[in-house]
């Protein structure tokens, strides 16, 4: 069972993602901010991170750079309410992005793709 880490400062998003993704068989852990995110990843060893771009205290795109620099191949899906973030170069270090929605079809599709994308070693 793949373990997903949902990082979002909105509680209802964490709940929504958590419940729906658990229903389709994923183990889900959550974090409400980017505080000590790298340490959390180190300890929990998630298979994938779903990362909110705009959090009150943290910029998800900066966190993405930190994740990519330390965990080179860890899949990261950016979750955002706005798609203007693409103008920021930093976003290209993400595996995928999804626009936040109550319909998680697209998110589930991207999770499946990201987890499938394991380059042979």
């Amino acid at each position, binding site marked *: 069972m793949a373990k997903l880490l949902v990082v979002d400062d909105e509680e209802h998003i964490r709940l929504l993602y958590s419940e729906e993704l658990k229903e389709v068989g994923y183990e889900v852990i959550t974090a409400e901010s980017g505080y000590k995110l790298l340490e959390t990843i180190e300890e929990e060893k998630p298979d994938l991170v779903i990362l909110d771009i705009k959090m009150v205290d943290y910029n998800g795109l900066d966190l993405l750079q930190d994740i990519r*620099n330390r965990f*080179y191949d860890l899949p990261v899906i950016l979750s955002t309410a706005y798609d203007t973030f693409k103008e920021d170069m930093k976003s*290209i*270090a993400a595996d995928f992005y999804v626009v936040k929605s109550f319909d998680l079809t697209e998110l589930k599709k991207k999770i499946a793709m*990201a987890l*499938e*994308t394991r380059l042979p070693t």
Partner: protein
Amino acid sequence: MASYEENPQGITKADIVVGIPTLNEAKTVGNTTEQCARGLREYFGNLNSVIVNCDNQSVDGTKDAFFAARCDIPRIYVSTQPGETGKGNNLRNLFEVVRRLEAQAVVVLEADISNLAPQWIKKLVEPILKGIGYVTPLYVRHKYEATLSSSVIYPLTRCLYGRRVRQPNAGDCAFKGSLVDAFLGSPVWTDAVRNSGIDIWMTTIALNARVPVSQCFMGTPKVHRVKDPYAHLSSIFRQIMSASFDLMGVYADFWRLVKWSKPTALAGTDTEDVESPLPVDVNMNRLYDRFVQGFEGASRVWEKMFDQTVCHKLNEIRDMGLQHFSIPTQTWARILFDAALIYHRVEEPQRTDLLDSLLPLYLGRVLTFVKKTERMSVQQAEDYVESECTVFEECKPHLIKIWE
């Protein structure tokens, strides 16, 4: 092996090597050397650096200009044998110097970049010193600049090897010194690689060496000598495609297992002043004419090599005329995949005929891209390229099937 070397300071070891490949670059190599030296001194003054001019026996005084540059970084000049040209040959000499000097980090920069600045050295070297294995620059580009990369090399390399390297043959790069063992040990060392195929060859080998790859946002366009995009197009196209197809054969066991693609790390995101891309004029009528003219000669090759579905589709596309012209991405991906397989099944001169027959299709594909993105911003066009790459990835099972 280099036929000639000058190492006036007797350098036997270095931490950082900057390589500048040249052929008759007396007017530009001095400035390039000085900018590199300033970057090395300013940002890596605590490390031992050397600048290597890897030349093709230039007759215009390139060597003298290189040594005359005002620079306090040690310099080495190496050259190929007289009459032996090609950037690939230059870089092979560089690899041997790097191996001998046991360098940790290597940067390759073309000699004619007029806006090269010392910070470029920092941007390219820093990721290597932090553990990245191979760095490609991410220059600010107009949507119609480097269309061979956007239409062919990027989508093909990405879908094959599973890593999103947007400018895989930018001409400049950085890599960790130990990677030269992979370069020098490659079974593919063809005429194409000795010439323009060298850039995609290096990137492909790095991807297959599974070293961490990073792209470095340069925040500026690469301003270099203005080249007529059509002047050497057929030979450059042939060399780059040939290098790509040859490497597909070598790495088939790897790419057949790769599904979808992953991003790379990204450096240079702290760049503050991002410049605008340089304007690029595109003549749609000329692209269309080149497609139609090429079609006449190439269709005989296609009939022999592609199956009837593809030939029928291409006839349909030609008959559309300029106004409705479009080569769909699925068709283009299938053409490239089929061509790669056929390339491996035939010998010369059919290989050259095949690659030459792809050129009008490539120009048709550029025309398709221009028509689709005419009213788009650079960012929107970039999103479009990304969506095309996804189509290539979705079509990859066809390649795997026919390859088996």
